[in-house]
């Protein structure tokens, strides 16, 4: 079935098709229409779930943790400040090994107040032990939510997932979406089979005190192994999903015209679709450029990035957030993956913060800067802010 849906309606549909039994939710722009859509699904009997209208995002995650630990599938959604407020419970969810799935709509963090897209909110949760997938279009939103339940619920993984979409560019923009058939999704996901649960017939305690000589460190090590397993399982799940639902996702990095490219732009989220369009135009003019759109930021696609570096002369990393200190996060991860494997130049382009528009014109200039560096073999400047007011270079 094809429908015209916004990114947020797609997220709600992804949740609906995955049949969570408890949804705990709190409103925040630009996420709110996800939980509004779910509320109307439940109110109309189209979705069979308990809906807990909590008083904060912190409690939303706490309620999901408790419900999932009791033995049911759960879902929630948030943005920016809501995600930051959840931070403590995000670490709790992964540490408790609960495969919760959450939609996150990327929004800038205040001050100053801004509701527009910016990826600092999810980047700041990089180390919480969640699987993080950045999406590029509404189809990918709905499909990724379904796949995240499948991946996270595997008993060798048991990790929560964030399915991330850019504010407004996806969340409030409508496009054609193919809704997977419910029967096929049911078959694909199967019944939720918790690895453990709160049960008076088999009483157990979850999360108790551990001394330094106790297995705290081993619990963390097992999470690290699970994240590595998620790398393997994701490949399988994406392949299976592609076959059943007729999609064409590459598991970790979507490469676009990277073969023979002199320079490749590494991106997350919706910058990808603009960049691909620019690549088509520039290729027409003889410029050999390509795009590598990173889908999974956690686990980070180390091997895939190394493979791309092997076939090009320069990587430009576009970040829609900044980590104050060494450069932005996608850049830092990319460079860290490449250290010791290649000496091609890597440059960080910081752009689009607080929802500032990233136009094809800007990206074309960035590609041309990248080609120049590719020819010279060295970067002029490791981190460059693109599109600042008064800077004529990129406008």
């Amino acid at each position, binding site marked *: 079935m094809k429908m015209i849906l916004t990114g947020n309606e797609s997220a709600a549909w992804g949740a609906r098709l995955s049949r969570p*039994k*408890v949804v*705990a939710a709190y409103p925040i722009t630009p996420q709110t229409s996800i939980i509004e859509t779910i509320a109307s699904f439940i109110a109309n009997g189209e979705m069979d*779930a*308990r809906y*807990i*209208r*909590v*008083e*904060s995002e*912190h*409690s*939303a995650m*706490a*309620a*999901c*943790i*408790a*419900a*999932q*630990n*009791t*033995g*049911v599938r*759960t879902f929630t959604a948030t943005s920016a400040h809501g995600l930051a407020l959840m931070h*403590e*419970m995000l670490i*709790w969810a992964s540490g408790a090994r609960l495969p919760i799935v959450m939609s996150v709509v990327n929004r800038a963090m205040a001050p100053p107040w801004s509701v527009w897209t910016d990826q600092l909110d999810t980047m700041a949760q990089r180390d919480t032990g969640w699987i993080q997938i950045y999406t590029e279009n509404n189809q990918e939103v709905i499909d990724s939510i379904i796949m995240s339940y499948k991946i996270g619920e595997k008993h060798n993984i048991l990790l929560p997932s964030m399915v991330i979409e850019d504010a407004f560019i996806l969340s409030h923009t409508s496009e054609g979406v193919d809704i997977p058939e419910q029967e096929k999704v049911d078959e694909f996901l199967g019944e939720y089979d918790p690895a453990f649960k*709160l*049960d*008076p017939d*088999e*009483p*157990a*305690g*979850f*999360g*108790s*005190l*551990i*001394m330094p000589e*106790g*297995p705290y460190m081993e619990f963390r090590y097992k999470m690290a192994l699970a994240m590595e397993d998620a790398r393997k399982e994701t490949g399988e799940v994406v392949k299976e999903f592609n076959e059943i639902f007729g999609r064409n996702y590459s598991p970790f990095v979507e490469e676009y015209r990277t073969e023979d490219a002199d320079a490749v732009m590494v991106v997350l989220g919706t910058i990808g679709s603009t960049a691909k369009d620019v690549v088509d135009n520039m290729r027409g003019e003889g410029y050999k450029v390509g795009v590598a759109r990173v889908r999974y930021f956690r686990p980070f696609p180390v091997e895939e990035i190394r493979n791309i570096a092997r076939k090009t002369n320069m990587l430009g990393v576009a970040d829609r957030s900044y980590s104050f200190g060494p450069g932005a996060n996608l850049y830092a991860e990319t460079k860290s993956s490449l250290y010791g494997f290649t000496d091609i130049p890597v440059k960080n382009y910081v752009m689009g913060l607080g929802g500032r528009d990233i136009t094809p014109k800007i990206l074309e200039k960035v590609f041309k800067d990248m080609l120049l560096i590719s020819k010279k073999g060295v970067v002029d400047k490791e981190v460059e802010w693109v599109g600042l007011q008064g800077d004529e270079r990129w406008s």
Partner: protein
Amino acid sequence: MHRLTIPEEEYMLSGHTACLGCGATIAMRYVLKALGKRTILSIPACCWAVIPGVYPHRNLEVPLLYTAFEVTGAAISGIREALDVMGKEDVNVVGFAGDGGTADIGLQALSAAAERGHNVFYIMYDNEAYMNTGIQRSGSTPMGAWTTTTPGGKKRMYKWEPKKSVAEIMVAHNIPYVATATIAYPEDMISKLRRAKEMKGPKFIQILSPCPTGWRYPPDKTVEVSRLAVQTNVFPLYEVVNGKYRITIKPKNPKPVKDYLMMQGRFRHLTEEEIARIQKHIDENWKALLKKERCSQED
């Protein structure tokens, strides 16, 4: 043969890690006796996060979800809804939190859970300070008390503000059942828990749980201190059923508050004048409670 007034079944095993004479431990034992085996507990950061023992040991024979400090209200909501959706409506869901986790950091989540009306128990075991972190002032610390963050000193910086009444805050949520209890009156506590068990919706019970370590009295005096708190009207025992107050233990000749205060090192510094001020405060609270009982029982 006498009929036992307290259930024989034990769901709390011996071998806990609490301090000698811990009132909160006695509170848990009675709560579980009253509610029985089909109970799931959620415990935030507090003394009881440590008392069950170090992994893999656990002295409770019911399932237990440890959670973060401020989330008990949200956690019991999540457990309840998940159980109901699975058709396990017979299982009691109990949040068991200290006074810091209830009166302070957890008040928001508790208020929201109460307002939403989940069918849960919330037990506040009130030892009147952050005892697990080593005796810091909470909103539930009583007037005049020494704690490590109200240490007195040259400026006599003690806890001079009145104790926050969480039970009254919960009454204001219009939930079906609110009660106070203390460990020296186990029959009273158990009958309240049993009454609460018959009701659907949020049930809140505040259990005064004396703490020898923080209150500075010998560990063998816990029950005595608990009893004196009631006999001096410092901690009245009452219940509020659908808005109607009923004082369950009314001391015939209340003892002077001074008797209660002087048993505990945390009040040792108080002057006669300060004791008189506390006595006045306690008397006013008691009178207000009698009025509430009278007014709410009228039609």
